[in-house]
């Protein structure tokens, strides 16, 4: 107990001390703060620095319901006009949940811009997991980035992966507490003029050990995977097309823990489809017809694919001022409070109110060049303290 004494005069002043809170209580308080505040408070004292920097703190923070409940939007777009081939990544620092507030989300300004080194080829936001974004370029450069802590890490290069050839996936293995990047490459062996042999080679990077590992798998027939996977329930999922035209497309999932492939059926409704996770379920969006969306209501149950009518597309198509409308259809990113839908269509981030049948544009990205199938430039992430660095 601290008792301060008045130094002057005959009176001794007794001042009630500020009660000191134990570190375990401080931890309870600190876990509830925005990441920016927590990082700032690292310099308060050594005990706090140790507490906050400990991976256990980040883990606990990650598992809190309030962490999981909030999502933020992130987008890749072109940098300033006078610089060519320069892409920037913008991460919104406001939660999407604020958009559902009547007063909030009016002018959606994110205050943070980051270009992580130079990307010489087209850059893609592969996927997000636990607040880490995986960014990949066609040159094979892979970066893990946490927009909330502004830490990033460029993976060591794998010399065996040729530029532009891999199909990528990113996710987490809970049993090993490890974030992994998986790259699937088709290796073609020309055995003779008539016989061509496909082998699928799988390389997996483990963040924990900071190493690449080769997993050799052999597949008889060529399986063409869509380039970028979506992570759910421990596996990276790609849409796969068979070489043979009459074969139906299906979903190929690579279990990151078991390191095995498995297949899932999918509705063959559209020529081109994009796979995404919305509300914890696999969703398929059609490029050509946005009124069609399929949701796998029960993971792994092929018959649970349910067609959903997307009510918003007719409104947005009419209002679009882009000529080739068929390429600029909306993709559902997120639902807020059941009624509000967050949509993205190449350029615009749109909030659509199902109940009122109204919409408003929240953000329009900078584009100096036209893209097709641009949806890999947008992603949602959660605000966490998870480190993108290997635990050395």
């Amino acid at each position, binding site marked *: 107990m*601290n008792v301060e004494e008045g130094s002057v005069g005959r009176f001794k002043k007794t001042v*009630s*001390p*500020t*009660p*000191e*809170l*134990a570190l*375990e*209580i*401080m931890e*309870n*308080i*600190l876990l*509830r*703060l*925005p990441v*920016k*505040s927590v*990082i*700032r*408070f*690292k*310099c*308060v*004292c*050594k005990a*706090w*620095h140790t507490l906050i920097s400990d991976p256990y703190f980040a883990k606990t923070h990650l598992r809190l319901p309030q962490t999981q409940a909030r999502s933020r939007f992130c987008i890749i777009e072109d940098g300033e006009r006078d610089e060519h081939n320069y892409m920037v990544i913008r991460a919104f620092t406001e939660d999407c949940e604020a958009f559902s507030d009547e007063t909030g989300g009016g002018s959606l300004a994110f205050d*943070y811009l980051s270009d992580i080194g130079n990307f010489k080829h087209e850059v893609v936001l592969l996927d997000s997991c636990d607040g880490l974004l995986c960014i990949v370029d066609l040159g094979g450069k892979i970066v893990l980035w946490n927009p909330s802590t*502004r830490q990033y890490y460029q993976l060591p290069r794998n010399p065996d992966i040729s530029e532009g050839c891999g199909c990528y996936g990113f996710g987490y293995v809970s049993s090993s507490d490890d974030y992994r990047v998986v790259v699937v490459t088709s290796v073609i062996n020309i055995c003779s003029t008539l016989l061509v042999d496909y082998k699928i080679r799988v390389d997996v990077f483990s963040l924990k050990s900071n190493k690449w590992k080769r997993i050799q798998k052999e597949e008889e027939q060529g399986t063409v995977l869509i380039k970028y996977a979506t992570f759910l329930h421990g596996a990276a999922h790609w849409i796969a097309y068979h070489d043979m035209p009459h074969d139906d497309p299906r979903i190929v999932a690579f279990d990151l823990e078991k390191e095995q492939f498995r297949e899932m059926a999918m509705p063959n409704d559209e020529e081109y489809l994009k796979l995404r996770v919305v509300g914890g379920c696999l969703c398929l969006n059609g490029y050509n017809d946005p009124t069609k969306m399929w949701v796998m209501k029960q993971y792994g149950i092929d018959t649970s694919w349910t067609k959903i009518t997307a009510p918003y597309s007719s409104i947005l198509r009419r209002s679009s001022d882009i000529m080739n409308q068929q390429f600029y259809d909306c993709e559902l990113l997120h639902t807020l409070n059941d009624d509000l839908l967050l949509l993205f269509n190449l350029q615009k981030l749109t909030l659509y109110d199902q109940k009122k049948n109204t919409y408003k544009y929240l953000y329009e990205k900078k584009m100096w060049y036209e893209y097709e199938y641009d949806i890999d430039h947008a992603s949602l992430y959660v605000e966490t303290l998870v480190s993108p660095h290997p635990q050395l």
Partner: protein
Amino acid sequence: MITLRSSDGETFDLDEVVAVELQTIKNMMEDRCAESVIPVPNVEGKILAKVIEYCKKHVKSTAKAEEHALSDADLKAWDSDFIKLDQATLFDLIMAANYLDIKSLLDLLCQTVADMIKGKSPEEIRKIFNIKNDFTPEEEKEIRRENQWAFE
């Protein structure tokens, strides 16, 4: 009926259904059967009174309680009024809620403090929690430099 006695000798009578909201007391009740008065040596009277006020409001489970049950919105409004306290009382309450193991009260209070401090500077934090800065100026400068953006 359970009687609690604070550190400064004040006694409080509570219905059992309220007393079990205080996990620590609940455990004591299960262990010590005959005791009529349970001492709470860590918590003084005015704080214990506040704790009990909270628990009475938040008690569920019996039919009697359901008669007077407040809606979630009402309860939330009551909570926002409840936490309008000076800092010293807030901290005393946190320590009491921690000792008495009342999760919902502890969550409410910790969230209140978190909301209060989130925009503050490290200097203000040290003042609020009476924490000594044990970094050297060079060490602190380095930590600030590493995370410059968080200070803007």
